[in-house]
């Protein structure tokens, strides 16, 4: 198994676990899923920006 497949597998397990928790929203998992698909999962600034964005959107909605 190559390194990226390993990340994909762990990411999948992580999201599955977190989605089953009450205090976690699918939207949050979406951040990391998208970042992985865009190959930006190792970019600190991108993660930081995405989390800020999701909270901002969430805040506007509710």
């Amino acid at each position, binding site marked *: 198994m190559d390194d*990226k497949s390993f990340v994909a597998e762990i990411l999948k397990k992580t999201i599955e676990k977190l989605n089953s928790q009450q205090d976690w929203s699918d939207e949050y998992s979406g951040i990391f899923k998208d970042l992985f698909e865009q190959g930006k999962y190792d970019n600190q600034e991108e993660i930081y920006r995405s989390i800020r964005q999701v909270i901002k959107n969430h805040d506007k909605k509710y």
Partner: protein
Amino acid sequence: MIRSINIENLRGIRFNTNIDLDNKSLIIFGENGKGKSSIVDGIEYAITGDIKHISSTCREVSLKKHAPHIYADFQEIKVEVEFSDGSVLSNYKEPEKGTLAYRIRNSKLGNINILRRSQLLDAISAQPKERYDLLKQFLPLAEITKFENALKGVVDKFQGEVNNLKTEIENHMRNIQAALDIKDLGSVTSDNIFSILVNRGKQFNIEDIKDFKEIPEYIKKVDNYIECMGNINRDVIIRNFLNLLNELIDKKSPELFAKAIYDNINTKLDLVQKKKVVFYEEFLTTGIQWLQEENKSLCPFCESPIDVPSVIERVKKRINENSEYSTLKKEFQRDYSILQSELKWWEDNLDKIRNINKKINDENIENLCKTIEDDIENFKKLVPNSIQEIIIVKNLPNWNESIYKNAIHLKNEYSNKVLPKDAVLLLNEAIKFKNDLKIVYDNIVHINKKTKENTLLNKKYKIAKQFYEELVRQRKNSVQEIYDEIKNDINSYYSSMHFEEDIGDIDLKIKDSSSKGSVIIEASFYEKSGEDPRAYYSESHLDTLGLAIFLALYKRECSKNKDLRLLILDDVLTSVDAAHRINIINLIFSEFKEHQLIITTHDIVLYKEILELEKLYGGNNKYRNIEICEWTKDRGPILDDTKSEIEKLREHLTNPHTDKNILASATGTFLELVLCKLRYSLELSIPAKYQDKYTIVDIWDNLYSKLKKNKEFYRLNSKVLDSINVSKFIRNISGCHYNEWAQGVSKDEIKQFTNNVIRFYEIVYCSICNSFIKKSNDNEDYQCNCSRLQYNKKDQLLIS
């Protein structure tokens, strides 16, 4: 499978070094520093584009700077690995899609299939955390590590922001705490703040405050209260002015001090006028001191000899006669100083009163100041400042009595203007309350704003932290799954390496406590189980433990990646003894028989052992052996195909051009090799020699007599044995030295000697099981491992 390797200008390799493998495994022998690892580096670089032991050593060592040969640039490096389908992986060209080279390049193997000696002990001896990092190299963790690091950075950043905000909120609370005099920070609550504000507001009869939003309105109400109560600032000024007036009224008139001076002088006016020119007491006193201290005998003015005691006596007499005047002068100076000091006080207070009057602006106060000012000037003019220049004015200067009268008048007037004491206290309290309200309001506005920010920030922090922690947990679980998956293989490999030893039960466990990851190794040692192997295992046992873990990880990776059939072991068996390494090589050859192996060693004995073992696993059809004969800085390694010693000897024997001395030497060397092996297998009693440097003579006689005692052996092989016994001298005279006697030995005689040695080898070494005959029991019966060769002391030779 690799078909061929080409390396140029990399590490210790200068000129193109080509190795044709033809899909065979490769065994490389070379002494230290001959370029073995450079070949491994070349393969690693071609396959992965990296040489990890260089690129990950430290910042000072880099691939770009240290991968090229010392006489070459990075751009001059050329490495190529050609695979069985003809595709090539190189450092200069991408492989074609669909080829084996392409699949290998894109499978991102890392260096899962390359194990170097240095990695072995490091992984076992390290602390759990470092060990995790070392074993990480063999796991697909590079990308997940980048992910985790980036996430950790985000978590830390959010945490930093949360902490900063928390500190800011705490500071705002501290401001409120200080303003409202609340004992501890924990009590700075909305309820407490309201309660304090309502209580303080009550004393000003202001209605209760119900909401923080009402504070600005509330402040206005307090302002109105202050305004109604009076001007507290003016009150403070008036109170200061009254204090000054009180001091002034109590102050004695300077006229009293001036009068003392006048009275004193006037009573002794005659004395003053008489002495004022001629008597200088200070001068005379100093003159006496000078004459006495310096022991002078000349007049200081005309330098004529003088009678010093007589002069001193006369001067003293004069001082004595003028003592009254002297006292008067001192009294004058004292009184004059007092007067000056009094006038200074009036001057200072005059300034203070004028400053206050700038705010009050009262004409009467200015008039008072003017009178004081004029009187001070008058006194300065009229009072003499030296007794010497005194001109007594009969009329003493007057200090205007109106000063005191006016001061008392002003005091009465302004005393009526001060606010009552209670009102002042209340006003001060109201002013403080107003300021405190402002502080509370400003800080609450900030706290509310920042609390809102904090709620959002906490959400962000929580998302990042929760995700990071779960990711780490899942990664650890996955790594632990890998370790559990390979546990059986590790133990199976380890017991194959140490099959007669009561050690093993190896288990790799990920520790929960460390965020990055720590690996604990547990193993058994006789009756001890679950122990850290470093506590009990020898260095070689730890090496083999590392090797077993590596092989198990490699096997696991192979099961997932069918293209991975290449195992490279760079000098990994150095610390292992002969018996164990045979087990290990056997294990590797049998377990990975479908794999292409590249094994390097600097140990000639191990190399020979591997060559012997190769025969059991396909021999020349499966293995290619290379000996690095020499290495030079300018050229790099010089390679040579190596055949086993017996093959070399046979080649010498059949080659008509072989020099007889070379043949004698090769025969002797080979016989020494055989005798050394028999020495151990037949348990010969040979006196020990430094570094085991035995010659033929050292072992032969003992062996010869022992083999003769085995009747079957001797009956069947006496001709060979006896022939060697009588011709062994050839090794010494023709094989080693030049002398005339040696020249007398014919090539045929030497060839006969060689034939006998080869025959002897064939009767003591089994080419089927690759073992020398050894003692099978105490009766001096001999047999090989597979029992094809058996020489019983009393029975017939059996060939099964």
